[in-house]
């Protein structure tokens, strides 16, 4: 918000402030940071950032008061000017117009003055110059007078052409259903019964606190002007302004809380400027219609509390008293330990003791506060065990050579996720996505239910940039579980996803044709990642059908307890076509919540001092016999002294009949008590061979 330094000088000595530099420094340390100070002729224009709690500082008077308090120098006139200085004549204002407030809570005060016999004229040079310097556009004497008074006092005003107010009557009321009003900007507004309007005896003439109506605005032909300055309820103004998409200098201030006691002074100032520029006479007296009364808040400040909250034992009641008085509080000392402060009407933000403490500390200077560290004891730890799981998964993926990426959670369920329907169903996702009501991008209003599409997009971007091998992972939330909307945390799921694409090993010494990543790379990575918590051999893999993965090369993974832990698959052609992707991309996702919170216990297991004896077994099996069933069967035989059974090789092609696969397993035997003989080991291997051929009709 822009302010003229020269204008501030109406209320405080610029010299005592130390000029522009001094003002800047004082406002900065008071919490009204000056973003820029630019010279404009003789003047300096300050661009000040004003937080929404400080409507009182959105005026030259208010800003001057702040700077003066920070500098601890006198501030001009803090009391609104009294009526009486201006020459008046003719009938009293109350004979020329009347005001009736029908919504007393929403309009606590409505003040009006009447100027008769003005002519159309530009406002005075000084008024125009000041308005121009802060970026306001001068229009004519009446409008400029209201704007000038706004920027001087902070009180928004409006000028009506009194002769166009039917019956000279003003009624403050709720809008009627279906009522319309063409506002000053020429837009016809459809009003709702929740909107507050200023009306004459026939129709709405102004959108209260936001913008006046076009019909009753002052024009070149206006001779009699009614100046309005009122107090409006912040919430009512904000609701209407937001609904209508309007934001004005007036609504900005009323939404934040105006000062009902600034009304008479602002009216006088506007009247004075109007009379100066456009002539006419001021009607004696003013209309001061009241709604619900406002009260001055009274807040107690205890010095002990001031010291506790600040941590500064040097703060004394004398200092607090002086600081608050300079900011306009009426302070009465109760004792050396406490004081009572009446909050000025322009400070809607101050209502509790801590607010007073902030005021005192602003003047004291935060930079003077001592520094120390909290005495609170305790060792730090992760309070959410799943965060530890996520970090461990992350470290595992980095160790496997993958790069961590982040992606946006905004998707379109239909185009991005419908091909993952089988997976979404397996994870219990609700059929309807959670959507954003006001999305950043209207084509992506749903929240993701799986990390996989975003990850595949990232893989695609890498290939587009010329990458030949890509390994990415992401940790993040997905949304859309059929949870309880009263407990939003139940709608989310924590996920970990990865994608592998292209050549898995490339080095100058590797063969020219390197191996592309396949299903088993992805499955192996998945197993390695969850191994700290779940023994991979206890995982249950089940074929999963979902359009995003190749049928027959995708699997869901269940925990031993039968809970869906994750998915691994080779991305299908149709999914690849959506975004250019290389021939083989493998991806997987882990449902982090399904991982046990505690890691598997690692305890010493004694091992044999005797050497292992190895026996290999090759057989030809139908492809339809799953490895899992062979392995399970073999383990069920409980071969004597068997230490491990490992798949050594799988071969299809010449020498093996169509539809069959040649499988080689390596059996390693070891006894804890003695060195085994090859012959006894071979006997056990042969026992397995016989059993396999009987059970599966396998050819040894």
């Amino acid at each position: 918000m822009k302010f003229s330094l020269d204008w501030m000088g109406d209320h405080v000595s610029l010299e005592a402030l130390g000029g522009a530099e001094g003002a800047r420094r004082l406002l900065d340390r008071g919490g009204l940071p000056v973003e820029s100070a630019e010279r404009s002729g003789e003047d300096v224009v300050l661009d000040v950032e004003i937080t929404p709690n400080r409507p009182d500082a959105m005026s030259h008077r208010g800003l001057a008061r702040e700077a003066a308090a920070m500098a601890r120098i006198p501030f001009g006139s803090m009391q609104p000017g009294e009526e009486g200085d201006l020459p008046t004549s003719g009938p009293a204002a109350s004979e020329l117009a009347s005001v009736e407030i029908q919504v007393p809570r929403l309009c606590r005060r409505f003040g009006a003055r009447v100027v008769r016999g003005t002519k159309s004229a530009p406002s005075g040079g000084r008024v125009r110059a000041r308005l121009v310097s802060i970026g306001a556009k001068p229009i004519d004497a009446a409008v400029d007078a209201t704007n000038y008074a706004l920027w001087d006092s902070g009180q928004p005003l409006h000028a009506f052409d009194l002769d166009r107010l039917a019956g000279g009557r003003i009624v403050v009321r709720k809008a009627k259903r279906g009522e319309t009003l063409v506002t000053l900007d020429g837009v016809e507004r459809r009003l709702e019964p929740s909107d507050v309007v200023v009306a004459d005896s026939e129709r709405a003439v102004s959108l209260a606190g936001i913008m006046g109506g076009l019909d009753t605005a002052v024009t070149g032909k206006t001779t009699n002007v009614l100046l309005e300055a009122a107090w409006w309820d912040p919430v009512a103004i904000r609701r209407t302004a937001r609904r209508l998409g309007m934001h004005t200098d007036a609504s900005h201030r009323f939404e934040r809380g105006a000062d009902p006691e600034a009304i008479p002074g602002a009216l006088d100032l506007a009247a004075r400027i109007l009379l100066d520029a456009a002539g006419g006479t001021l009607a004696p007296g003013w209309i001061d219609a009241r709604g619900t009364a406002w009260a001055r808040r009274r807040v107690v400040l205890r010095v002990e509390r001031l010291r506790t909250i600040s941590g500064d034992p040097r703060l004394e009641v004398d200092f607090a008293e002086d600081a608050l008085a300079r900011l306009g509080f009426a302070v009465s000392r109760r004792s050396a330990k406490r004081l009572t402060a009446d909050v000025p009407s322009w400070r809607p933000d101050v209502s509790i003791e801590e607010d007073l403490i902030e005021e005192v500390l602003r003047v004291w200077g935060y930079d003077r506060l001592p520094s120390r560290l909290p005495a609170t004891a305790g060792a730090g730890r992760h309070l959410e065990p799943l965060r530890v799981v996520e970090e461990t998964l992350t470290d595992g993926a980095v160790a496997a050579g993958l790069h961590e990426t982040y992606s946006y959670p905004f998707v379109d369920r239909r185009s991005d996720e419908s091909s993952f329907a089988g997976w979404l169903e397996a994870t219990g996702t609700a059929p309807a996505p959670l959507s954003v009501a006001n999305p950043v991008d209207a084509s992506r209003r749903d929240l993701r239910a799986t990390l996989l599409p975003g990850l595949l997009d990232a893989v695609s971007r890498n290939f587009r940039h010329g990458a030949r091998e890509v390994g990415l992972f992401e940790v993040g939330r997905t949304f859309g579980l059929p949870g309880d909307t009263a407990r939003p945390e139940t709608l989310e799921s924590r996920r970990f996803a990865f994608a592998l694409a292209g050549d898995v090993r490339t080095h100058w010494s590797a063969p020219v044709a390197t191996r592309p990543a396949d299903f088993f790379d992805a499955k192996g990575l998945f197993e390695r990642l969850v191994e700290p918590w779940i023994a991979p051999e206890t995982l249950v893999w089940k074929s999963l059908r979902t359009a995003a993965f190749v049928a027959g090369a995708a699997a869901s993974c269940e925990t031993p307890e039968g809970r869906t832990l994750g998915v691994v698959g080779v991305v299908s052609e149709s999914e690849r076509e959506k975004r250019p992707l290389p021939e083989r991309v493998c991806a997987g996702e882990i449902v982090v919540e399904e991982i046990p919170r505690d890691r598997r216990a690692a305890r010493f297991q004694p091992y044999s001092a005797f050497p292992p004896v190895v026996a290999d077994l090759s057989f030809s099996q139908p492809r339809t016999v799953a490895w899992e069933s062979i392995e399970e069967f073999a383990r069920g035989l409980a071969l004597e002294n068997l230490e491990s059974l490992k798949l050594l090789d799988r071969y299809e092609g010449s020498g093996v009949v169509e539809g069959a696969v040649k499988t080689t397993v390596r059996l390693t035997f070891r006894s804890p008590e003695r060195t085994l003989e090859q012959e006894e080991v071979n006997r056990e291997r042969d026992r397995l061979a016989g059993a396999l051929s009987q059970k599966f009709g396998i050819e040894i």
Partner: protein
Amino acid sequence: MTEEPGPAGRAEEAISNVLASFQDEAARGVSSRSEFEALKGRYLGREKGLVTALFARMREIPASERAAYGARANAAKREVEEGIARLSEALARTETERRERAAAVDITLPGRRTRAGSLHPVTLVRRRIEEIFLRMGYSIADGPEIESDFYNFEALNFPPEHPARDAQDTLFIDREAPSPLLLRTHTSPVQVRELKKRGAPLKIIAPGRVYRNESVDATHQPVFHQVEALVVDRGIAMADLKGTVETFFEALFGAGTRVRIIPTFFPFVEPGADVHVSCIFCRGTGCRTCKGSGWMELAGAGEVHPRVLEACGVDPQEYSGFAFGLGLDRVAMMLYEFPDLRLLYEGDERFLSQFAPLS
């Protein structure tokens, strides 16, 4: 005139000849295992070995000289055997050298490195910050990214229809709920959740992802990350906040980092403060990044508002606390000196693989 040598004399001569010839051959050395075996057989062979033959002559020697001859023949045998052993060692050395020569490589060829993965720069910054706070005894808390209006605003003293909500650019969820659902706009709701759950005293940080309705550009993202610190205990003052942000930023940005706090407004703190840190690029002398001020506005902070403590069931007359919040993406941008926040969400490995942990 010399006397014709007797049988003993001839045998003595034979010893000398064998030794002389062995020394000759040994001096020439052997170049292969087979040559070595041939040489060894020639001298020590059980049947025809030249040294073996010396002992066969024993019978020719007169009994009186036999012992002396035997001793000399044995000495000669030892000498040959030692020579053979030396040759064997030399041969082994040669063979080892030959194998090693064959195994030699061009040590300047590139090494075969295992694939190195990497962490996202924001993760790296988050982990560094977590580590600093863990060492200061803070625990790490976590909360949902979909929040209710209650936790995101109401309990944090943002009344309904308050203009302070405007600054939050909230993304609302299109779903009926007892308290309207939204994507959390800050990590502060975790303060409320943890205080309600655990009560005071409490000393936590809450890192996490937050959302705002921002259009994407180099310095704005609808998705970004914050970390929130909260300490609630008896007598926690602005002085504690000041000391904590000084300690923290010095740990994060290095010795000599200066910190100042100035008043500002956030609904959930009173008094409220903005935390300014001396610009890490110019060290406070003023540069383009800090717009010449020498300072960077990095965190919002303050004493926890009594109404927030009350909403969490903590008595504000007994306990007080401070909170501060910091954006991680901007800190990552500063520490790693990349120019555009959009890079964080593009998933380009050329970007992602560049960053290493902070210390």
